[in-house]
């Protein structure tokens, strides 16, 4: 049995809105093992976003426990949480969140700037390596506005990889992209998962994206309603090849 990356036990998160208490998560438990590619599904209001914030150590649970890579997040203060995010988690956002007027390479270097153990030459080397693994090494000097949406998301993935986190946490990472580009991103994710053994947690509401993952957890009204292993993982590269060719696009 492989190592558990995260353990979530009876996780609860309440928000106090005015005089009312909103129970966004009402006791969710699941584990993620190293090398898993898991999707979290759920419609809006299901507690998906709250779950994502807690998984990303941006928020702390009100009850229950969340242990990431052997550390209970509940015991960490604000600065320790920041450091923890820096070392353990690679974020990929729906809207890419690249810094404008900053080159792809510098965007990828960003997490390492907040890691004082990394020297500037090592930072550059690791950022180039990460760009290479998303096949954008030749575009390192480009600004975000000189890149397509898919390329921008690949830069964001490189940024998530550069600190060698234990988990990549993607939030609707294909939400802003067309089908073809979405499949490209999913194909990249699958490659990172199988070849580089990266653990990926992917939050989405699109079932066809979930089909590319090895496991799907479904949330509804703050509760876990389904946790299924995907026996027939769709291959994104094949799905991409089967899409009708368009002439106006060439990656």
């Amino acid at each position, binding site marked *: 049995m492989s190592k558990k990356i995260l353990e979530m036990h009876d996780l609860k998160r309440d928000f106090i809105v005015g005089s009312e208490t909103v129970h966004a998560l009402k006791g969710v438990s699941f584990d993620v093992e190293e090398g898993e590619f898991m999707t979290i599904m759920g419609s809006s209001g299901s507690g998906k976003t709250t779950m994502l914030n807690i998984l990303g150590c941006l928020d702390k649970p009100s009850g229950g426990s969340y242990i990431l890579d052997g550390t209970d997040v509940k015991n960490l203060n*604000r*600065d320790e949480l920041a*450091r923890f*995010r*820096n*070392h353990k988690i690679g974020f990929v*956002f729906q809207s890419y*969140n690249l810094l404008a007027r900053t080159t792809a390479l510098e965007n990828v270097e*960003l997490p390492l*700037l907040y890691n004082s153990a990394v020297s500037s030459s090592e930072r550059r080397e690791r950022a180039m390596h990460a760009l290479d693994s998303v096949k954008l090494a030749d575009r390192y000097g480009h600004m975000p506005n000189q890149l397509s949406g898919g390329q921008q998301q690949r830069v964001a993935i490189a940024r998530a990889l550069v600190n060698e986190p234990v988990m990549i946490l993607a939030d609707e990472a294909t939400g802003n992209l067309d089908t073809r580009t979405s499949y490209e991103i999913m194909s990249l994710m699958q490659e990172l998962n199988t070849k580089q053994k990266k653990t990926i947690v992917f939050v989405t509401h699109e079932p066809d994206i979930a089909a590319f993952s090895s496991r799907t957890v479904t949330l509804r009204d703050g509760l876990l309603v389904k946790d299924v292993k995907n026996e027939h993982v769709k291959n994104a590269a094949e799905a991409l090849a089967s899409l009708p060719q368009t002439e106006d696009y060439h990656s």
Partner: protein
Amino acid sequence: MKLLNLIKLSLRALTRNKLRALLTMLGIIIGVAAVITMMSIGKGSQQSIESSLSNMGSNLLTIVPYNNVAGGARVQGSSVQSLTIEDVNALAQQSTHLSAISPIAQSSGQVIKGSLNWPTTIQGVAPDILDIRKLSLKDGTMFGDDEVRSSAKVCLLGQTVIDNVFEPGENPVGQTIRFNKIPFEVIGVLNPKGQNTFGQDQDDIVIAPYTTVQNRISASQYFQNIVASAKSEAESDPASEEISGILRQTHRLRRDQDNDFTVRTQADLINTLNATSNMLTTLLTVIAGISLLIGGIGIMNIMYVSVTERTKEIGLRMSIGARGIDILMQFLIEAVVISVSGGIIGVVVGISASLIVAHTLGWPTLISEASIVISFFVCALTGVFFGYYPAQKASMLDPIEALRYE
């Protein structure tokens, strides 16, 4: 994040908004330039006062008559007649702190030479005057005690008088001029000294033995004042007290009577003048300081705008591992970079303005290193002070909220 990276980051943020950064700096630039210019003008005039006074002799003592008549109409000190040759002799014989002494009998009149004439002042003095006033001869000789004893009709001329009554290139030495109808032989020419601090032309002068002026021109046995040199600058104060003691005896003043003369040391004069110029400098610096304050508020304003504008960037930085202190430092250093760059530009502008003032208006200026160093630190402090609150606001943002900010 390392300091060097933070500085690079803030420089880049500023170059992206060049015009905005420049406008923000403007308050600081004007403030610092004003401080530097004001201080350089203040220091310059102070230095020129000091140097021209010490040029007059820093150990100079001046004794002037002083009207102490209680009640009734008081008259101007210079028209009071109390200083005589007995005072001079008593001081010369009894004092231990004085190295030179000369009475001054002054009279104004017209210098005539051929068809040219010039209104000026003749000063009747003793030969010691050269040491006391730090005068030197350009040509000819100084009169001695013999000429004083015989009330000889000899004189020395200052450059302004020569320029006005002699043809260019003419040698005045050996020639005869008339002062109020009385002929004088010119025996020497004084080196030019230029204007003094008060704008008086120190070269518009005729000097002659005091006996000559007293006996042949003013027909008065009194002196307008007596000047003396203390043996050193440090002896000025004891010399001043000694003079008072001697003169009280020669003037036969009773214990309860006030002095009928005043002894002024050069240090008194320097202090009085400096007090005025210091006050002016302080006032100007305060005004300049206020413009620095306004510049600082400008920085604070723009930093708040910048924080709001970059909320999403802050959220991203936090989500990938920036701690509150990292964000705080980022914005704080940006504010300091703005204020310090403004300070550097302000120093350059201030130095240029001082040079322009010195060059075009002919005012004395002195750019002191202290004013540059002080304004530089004040700028950095302004940046920290006014940048802190916006930076702190940024560092306290909730990453979840900040990321969602549109």
